[in-house]
C-alpha cells in the first residue's frame, strides 16, 4: 500500500473516531477498539505506561461499557443539561507502519465542549497504536496527552476526549 494511501486511511479513521464522540455514538466508538484495546489519558506527558499509576482515564472495553451505561442511564443527573462537543483532529504524523500493516500515529486535537451555558476548551496530542483489521483499523491504545490535563478542572470530564 502506498504511503499516501496509508496516510489517507489513518486520517479518515482518526476523523471517524472523533466524529463518533461528537455524535455521542458511544457503542460505535467502543467498537473501534480491539478486544484488548485501552483508552488512556495520563495526568502528565512523562508517564510511560497506563498500568499501576494515577490516570485521568485508563479504561479497557469493560470500563468503557460502564461509562457508556452510566451516561445513557435515565438517572445520570449530570447528563441532563444540554451538552455537546466538537473535535478537530489535525497534524496527523505517522511514526511507524509495521509489515503487518499496524500503525503508530500521532495527531493533535482541539475540542470545544458546551455544557449548560459554559464553554470549555481542551486540546492536546493523540497517540494511537492501530491494529490493521480486515476492514480498516482497530485501536490497541489511544493515548490522550491533554495540554490542560494538569490544570484544575472546573467541573469534570464525563466522557472520553
Amino acid at each position: 500500500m502506498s504511503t499516501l494511501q496509508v496516510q489517507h486511511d489513518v486520517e479518515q479513521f482518526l476523523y471517524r473516531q472523533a466524529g463518533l464522540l461528537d455524535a455521542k455514538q458511544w457503542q460505535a466508538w467502543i467498537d473501534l477498539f480491539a478486544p484488548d484495546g485501552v483508552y488512556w489519558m495520563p495526568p502528565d506527558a512523562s508517564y510511560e505506561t497506563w498500568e499501576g499509576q494515577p490516570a485521568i482515564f485508563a479504561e479497557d472495553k469493560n470500563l468503557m461499557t460502564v461509562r457508556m451505561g452510566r451516561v445513557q442511564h435515565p438517572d445520570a443527573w449530570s447528563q441532563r443539561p444540554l451538552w455537546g462537543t466538537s473535535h478537530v483532529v489535525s497534524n496527523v504524523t505517522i511514526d511507524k507502519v509495521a509489515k503487518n500493516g499496524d500503525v503508530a500515529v500521532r495527531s493533535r486535537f482541539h475540542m470545544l465542549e458546551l455544557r449548560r451555558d459554559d464553554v470549555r476548551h481542551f486540546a492536546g496530542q493523540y497517540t494511537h497504536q492501530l491494529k490493521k483489521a480486515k476492514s480498516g483499523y482497530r485501536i490497541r491504545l489511544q493515548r490522550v496527552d491533554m495540554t490542560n490535563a494538569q490544570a484544575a478542572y472546573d467541573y469534570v470530564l464525563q466522557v472520553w476526549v
Partner: protein
Amino acid sequence: MAMPQLKERTMDYVKMVEPDRVRRQVYTDEAIFAAEMARIHEQVWIYVGHESQVPRSGDYYTTRIGRQPMILVRGSDGKVNVLYNRCPHRGTMICGDMKGNTGDQFRCSYHAWTFHHDGSLKSIPMMESGYRDTRVARDNPDCSVKRAARVQSYRGFVFASLAGDGPTLKEFLGPAIVAFDDMCDRAPDGEVEIVPNCFRVIQRSNWKLFMENQLDALHPSVTHQSTGRAAHEVEKRLAKQAKKGEVPLSYHMLSAFATVTIDKWDGFQTINYPFGHSVLTGYMGLRPQDPDTRAYDKIMIKRYGKKRFEEIVGVNIHHVLVYPGLSVQSPLQQLRAVRPIGVDRTLTEIWHFRLKGAPEAIYRRSLAYYNLVNSPATMINADDLENFWKCHQGLSSDGGDWVSFHRHYGRDIVKGEVVESGPNMGTSEAPMRNQMKAWVQYMGGSGG
C-alpha cells in the same frame, strides 16, 4: 453612621443556625464567607500536605489555608516549614508555581531578596547602600517571610494553624485522629507515602456543601444510581464469564453505589465528635479472600502478630471527616482537602497514598478507586458536583429561607460530647447538625 459592632454581627451568625435547620445565607453571603475564612479556616488546624510530598531539602508545594496562599517547604535542616507565600518587601508571591525545588534559598523574582527555608531573611541587594538607617534590617522580623503561627505533624500529615493560640493538633483532632492511625497502621511499615500528583477539581458551590455531602449516607443510592447500575451490569457479565471471585474489586467499588440500597445505608452509623468531625462506619467488602489480600495479611501478621493485625484490619470506617476541610478514606488510602476559593467556588485537592511495605496489588486496589471515583473523569463525583451547583443556585434564590437537617433529628444518641446516629439510622443528618454546631461555636467566638 457608627460602624456595626462586632458583637451584633456575631449575634447574627449565631442566629442563623438552629439545631435542626440553617439559614440559606450561611451558604451564599459573601460577608459570611469572609468571616468564616477569618474565624474558622484561618484559625483552626488545616491539612497542608504530607511530609513525603517534600522529601528533599528545598522541595516545596504551594497551597492555601483559607484565603492565604501558603508554601510547604522542606528545610536544609530536614524540618518542614509552612510559610505565607509573600515577600515581605513588596508583597510578591515567592513561589508562582504549584511545586518545585527552590535550592538552598528562596529568591524573590522581583528584587532578589533571598530567604532561608524557614522564611528568615538571608540577604537584600543594596542592604548597606540602599537601606542604611531605615526600618529594613537583618534583625527586623518584618523583613522575613511570615511563618504559619503553628505547624504540627501527625504520622507524616502536616497541619498548620494561623492562630497562635488554640488546642494542639491532637486535641483538635480528638477521636478523628483514627483517620491517620487507620491509614498508617494498615501499612506493614507503619507509614504511608504520597503518590504525586494530586487531582484538582473545582465545584461551583460553597465549601460546606462538600463537607455535608461526604457523610450523607442517603445520597449515594440516589445520586450515583446511574454509575452503580451500569457497573453492576458489567460486573454480573464478568462474573458469569470468569471463575468465582475474579471480577476486579473496582467494579464492586462502583456497583456498591447502587446495590447498597437506602434501607441498607441506614444500617451503617455515623459518630460525631467535637469541632465538627465525624466518622462513617464502613460498608465495602474490603476484606476479600483473594490471593492478593491473603499475601498482604501474611505480611501484616508477621509484622504485627495475629492479635494486633485483627485489630488493625478490623477498624470499621469508611470516611473520616475532619472539619472544616478534610475528608479521609483511610481504608482506601485517599483524602480530599477542601480549599475554598470564594463563597460559590471550592477547590478540592485529591491525593492517595501507598502503604509502605505492602504488596503492589494492594496499592493497585487503592489506585483503582482513586482513578474511578476521584479522578477528573470520575463517574461518581460528576453527579455530586452537579448537585452542589444546583444546591448553590437554589440557595441563592428567595424560594425559601432554610436548609433542613431534620433526618432522624431528635433520635441521636448523645454520649457526652459525642453524638451517634441511632440504631438503624445511619442516614441521620447528625453529621451536618454536628458541623453546624461547630460552625456556631467558631463564628460566635466560643469555639477553639
